[in-house]
């Protein structure tokens, strides 16, 4: 069997195994709840009808043995049937998630692109001037970036740009009267609402990624083929940007895949502060309302997105690295 096909099959099996693991943990989380998971929503909630209680008990199959419950729950999850939301509009959870997904997904992709555009040059420069003033300044920035609570940064930015110098709107996705604006007006209105959240998103991953890029670059610059390239008289810029950069970027692909859980977690805080109607805010509202189907739907979806990210990173790595593509890794 060709190496790439074997690799993909192994990966697919691995993904299935992880999916089972994730659902087992999610399922356990449901059963962590003291008493019946439906109590809070039904007996303690005068608004919940007996109909809602019956629906929830049917969803979790609480009268059946645990393994039967798990299998029926899992078969629903696979068909994206997360049940109906217990709070507010009682719409299907999957519909609510789908309408919130584009904003969060778009913000995360935009912030990933921005992060890479900033950290790759930063990491290269730090590695190139290792131990010099630029590298030291970058190191200090990295330490502060690691320690900066995202929600505090958001508060500072809000104070500076929305209160002290009111240049940007303080929260929400659109202004009042958005529908009456011209196309360019709409575009600017959206952009001005998203600048600060995007800044906070991106700042959160700058430190880790630039540090990683620096280490990766330093590793590569120590290799013999770099010395060879220099020795045969190639200009430094060619060696750095052609020989070294390509190899230094490989581990970055993996790290991108691994950074997805942090991004998803960060969206809860950022979207709550800036009142953005995304997935993170939906999850937060679900948590505050103890909306079990909504929480579980988000939890499983978040884990699935993480898995998809890891899989994509793995495939991209395989495409980018000829050693893996031809299956001669480590032979």
């Amino acid at each position, binding site marked *: 069997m060709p190496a790439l096909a074997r690799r993909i099959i192994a990966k697919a099996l691995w993904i299935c*195994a*992880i999916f089972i*693991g*994730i659902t087992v*943990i*999610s399922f356990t*989380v*449901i059963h*962590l*709840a*003291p008493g019946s*998971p439906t109590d809070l929503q039904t007996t303690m909630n005068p608004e919940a009808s007996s109909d809602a209680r019956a629906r929830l008990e049917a969803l979790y199959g609480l009268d059946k043995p645990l393994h039967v419950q798990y299998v029926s729950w899992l078969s629903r999850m696979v068909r994206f049937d997360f049940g109906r939301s217990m709070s507010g509009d009682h719409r299907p959870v999957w519909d609510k998630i789908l309408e919130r997904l584009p904003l969060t997904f778009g913000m995360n992709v935009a912030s990933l692109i921005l992060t890479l555009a900033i950290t790759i040059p930063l990491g290269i420069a730090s590695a190139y001037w*290792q131990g010099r003033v630029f590298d030291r300044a970058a190191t200090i920035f990295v*330490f*502060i970036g*690691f*320690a*900066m*609570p*995202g*929600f*505090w940064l958001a*508060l*500072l930015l*809000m*104070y500076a740009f929305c*209160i002290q110098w009111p240049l940007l709107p303080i929260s929400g996705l659109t202004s009042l009267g958005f529908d009456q604006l011209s196309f360019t007006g709409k575009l600017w209105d959206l952009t001005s609402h998203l600048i600060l959240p995007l800044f906070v998103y991106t700042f959160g991953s700058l430190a880790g990624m630039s540090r990683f890029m620096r*280490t990766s670059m*330093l590793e590569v610059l120590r290799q013999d083929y770099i010395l060879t390239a220099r020795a045969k008289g190639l200009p430094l810029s060619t060696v750095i940007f052609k020989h070294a950069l390509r190899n230094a970027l490989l581990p970055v692909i993996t790290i991108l895949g*691994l950074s*997805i*859980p*942090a991004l*998803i*977690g*960060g969206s*809860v*805080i950022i979207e*709550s*502060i800036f009142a953005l109607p995304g997935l993170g805010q939906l*999850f*937060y509202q*679900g*948590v*505050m309302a*103890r909306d079990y189907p909504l*929480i*579980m739907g*988000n*939890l499983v979806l*978040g*884990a699935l997105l*993480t*898995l998809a990210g*890891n899989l994509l990173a793995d495939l991209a790595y395989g495409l980018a690295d000829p050693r893996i593509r031809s299956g001669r890794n480590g032979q």
Partner: protein
Amino acid sequence: MTLLGTRRFWSRNGMLLTGGLIVGFMSLAALAAYWIAPFDPTTLNMDSILKAPSMAHPLGTDALGRDVLSRMLFGARVSLWVGFVAVGISVSIGLFLGLVAGYFGGLVDEIIMRGVDVMLCFPSFFLILAVIAFLEPSLSNIMVVIGATSWMGVARLVRAEALTLRGRDFVLAAKVAGAGPARIIFVHILPNAIAPVLVSATLGVAGAILVESSLSFLGLGVQPPMPSWGNMLMEGKDVLTFAPWLSFYPGLAILITVLGYNLLGEALRDLLDPRMRD
């Protein structure tokens, strides 16, 4: 004193000194909060609501007239306590699973390490929020949940150490002398695998403080009236327009404390493992 002025000294020990000073200062402030706080952190005072920083209240007062400095000192106790206990829990879990996986190897190792992979696939902040939603937000629940979702790094580290240590001669000698697996793991392997765990635990305190403050900021962590830096910022957010100091100082305290633990952790890494220096 000439030593203190040299660049060589600072480049080698700057992180250790800065980190150590910050951590020491914050710990002292937290320990001495009862004696050095100028006011009671929870007593309401309707005569001094939202007062800007002054001589009487160096960091101002909040919407209920409570002294911000006093609340921050007591908030430090909460942050550090959560940080230490959560890390204690995560290190205990990580150490145990890592040692067992690394020492026994084979199927046990495979099962534990695949479990680690699954846990790493979870957006841990989502998982923490979900669990807190099912339990009630309380100090002990937060510490347990943070600890139970952050042990994977330690488990991987310890497993790798145990894997190399179990083939060493002194372990073989202990085996020949008739020591059982428990004795070998805890008496012979554990002490030799502890150095990287120390680094990881120091960095872990920083991480736990950040998570606790995020949870409290969202209203799902430490519950008022008990002060924590996170819930002080939550209260500050509502009055950001006319009382910005409420949103400034607690955040600065989080930044400096986390910075201190990170610096200390990195410095320890350099000290304990010269190979990691780049």
